[in-house]
């Protein structure tokens, strides 16, 4: 498989007023296209920082990040924004839907600045909402949807530009376990459709669906192991090397 994302000796130091916190310390990782990576670790281990750096939301203090061979540091802010829109879909723990917009409009938000016809935007949003199981709920506001439904809307929003990689930060953190399972199923489905999924989670159960597990501890990669391919009927899995 081709290397899709390449992190080389990436460190991220937060500091100020005499304090200095190393969120990541010389992390080097390669992610291939089509992988389903679950990043786990304790609070403060650097998971969310890793995700922000992978998505070009945050520049590392040192080291390089390259996606499809393009170093992110070489991109201007506008090119980085284009890159995020075209390549990456973000899913956040707290959904971060705009509360004054309907589900359909929330999905359309990333397309707002683009010169795409309104009908086309609406049709694309409706199709995506249907694909995440929200057909018939397009006009509901986030306040009229359950937590699981809100997260589905957020996933549909992340998919609206057809990104090749989905970055999810604790996507089930605000959901009950049953609803969380449905969201994991949805990510598995998206992975099967060819998306690269990199998910930060506390939930070790999700490892059963992933192709790779990365464990961080104090900003360092403690464990990086490949898992055996998914067993469609839910049978046993064997850890990969």
């Amino acid at each position, binding site marked *: 498989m081709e290397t899709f994302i390449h992190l080389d000796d990436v460190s991220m130091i937060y500091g100020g007023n005499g304090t200095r916190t190393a969120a990541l310390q010389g992390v080097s990782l390669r992610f291939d296209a089509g992988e389903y990576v679950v990043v786990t670790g304790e609070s403060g281990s650097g998971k969310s920082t890793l995700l922000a750096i992978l*998505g070009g*939301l945050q520049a590392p203090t040192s080291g390089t990040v390259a996606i499809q061979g393009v170093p992110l540091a070489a991109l201007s802010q506008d090119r980085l924004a284009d890159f995020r*829109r075209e390549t990456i879909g973000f899913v*956040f723990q707290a959904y971060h839907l705009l509360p004054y917009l309907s589900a359909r409009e929330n999905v*359309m938000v990333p397309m707002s*600045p683009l010169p795409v016809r309104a009908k086309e935007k609406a049709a694309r949003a409706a199709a995506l909402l249907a694909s995440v199981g929200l057909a018939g709920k397009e006009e509901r506001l986030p306040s009229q949807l359950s937590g699981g439904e809100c997260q589905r809307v957020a996933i549909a929003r992340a998919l609206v530009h057809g990104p090749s990689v989905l970055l999810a930060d604790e996507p089930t953190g605000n959901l009950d376990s049953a609803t969380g399972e449905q969201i994991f199923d949805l990510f598995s489905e998206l992975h099967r459709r060819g998306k690269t999924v990199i998910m930060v989670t506390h939930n070790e159960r999700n490892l059963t669906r992933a192709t790779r597990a990365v464990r961080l501890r104090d900003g360092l990669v403690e464990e990086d192991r490949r898992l055996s391919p998914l067993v469609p009927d839910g049978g046993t899995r064997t850890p990969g090397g």
Partner: protein
Amino acid sequence: MDLKKLAWKNLHRRKTRAVFTGLGIFLGIGTFVALVSLTSQMEGAVQDKLDRYGANILILPRTEQLSLGFGNIALGGTEVAHATLRVKDKKAIESIPHRDRLRSVVPYFLTAAGTSGKEVVWMGLPAEEIPTARPWWKIFGTPIDGKEEVLLGSEVAAALDKGPGGTVTAYGRAYRVSGVLRPTGEKEDGMVIADIAAVQALGRKPNAVSYYEVAALCKDCPVEDIVAQLSQALPGARVSAIRQVVESRREAVDHFRKLGLGVSAVVLAIGGLMVFVTVMGSVQERTREIGVLRAVGFRRRAILSLLFWETGWISFLASGMGAAAGGAVSLLVAPHFGVETPGIPPVPLFGGMLLGMTLGLLGAVPPARKAAALSPTEAIRTL
């Protein structure tokens, strides 16, 4: 869903903030339009009223200073009149191209005459024109009614010890004192005022005129033009604008205009500040939302556009309503400020709307720039 609609939806959600932001522009533009409309209408009204309050052009017979001497010995000089003015000259005066701007043309005749034992100057003018020529005169008694009646200046009345109902005599002829002028501080305090025909008869110069006073309405044309035309109409006369009167009137109107503009500028500055503060507050409040938009691929320019659309919507609506309200207020209050035919001048109305839009957008520049420069990193920390 595009940026315009996204901005509109956000405003709809934050109605109170939008109303507060718009309030600054509404009040600023409303005040601006009301004051500018009112002052521009009042400028005309004030000028008209000032022009009606006395003359601003004086027409005298042309004179020349003639020096007298013998050899190197100077014996002083004297003024020699080239021509005298006549009553019929009024027709020539009233035939100039700017005749529509002439509110009144009043002939005066002055002569000295022994009056009840004292030498006094008599001033004659058409009795029926006294109210328009000298509107500030306060008469104790009644106005002149005919050739046999006179008004006495306050000093003359005191010197002759005469009052309303009394009689004064000049050249053996008796005149009834119809009234006494309250002190004016002018030369007429020491004069006897009568109908011009009576004074011409007294001076034995029928149809002669000492000078003309012209009250010209100078709102839309410079007084110099009128003076030039009068000079052309009366080649034998010396026509001059009473500069002090003209300048003081112009100054009064200018002060008024400056006051209006000054007040408008202050209110507009406050309005702009309100926009700045509320939009800045909105940006602070929406750091997370802006972070999400940046995360889903909004360029800085798109964030700028979004905030400008929001402020643009508010500015457009608030300016429109402010201009309409300001125009309506000026229309309602104009009659109380002496404007006889109130209207809404289009320039302040549309200028105000344009100014409101510009003000709103300018006020949003610093916060919008701040929002656009907001790093997704900063925003992501709040996620």
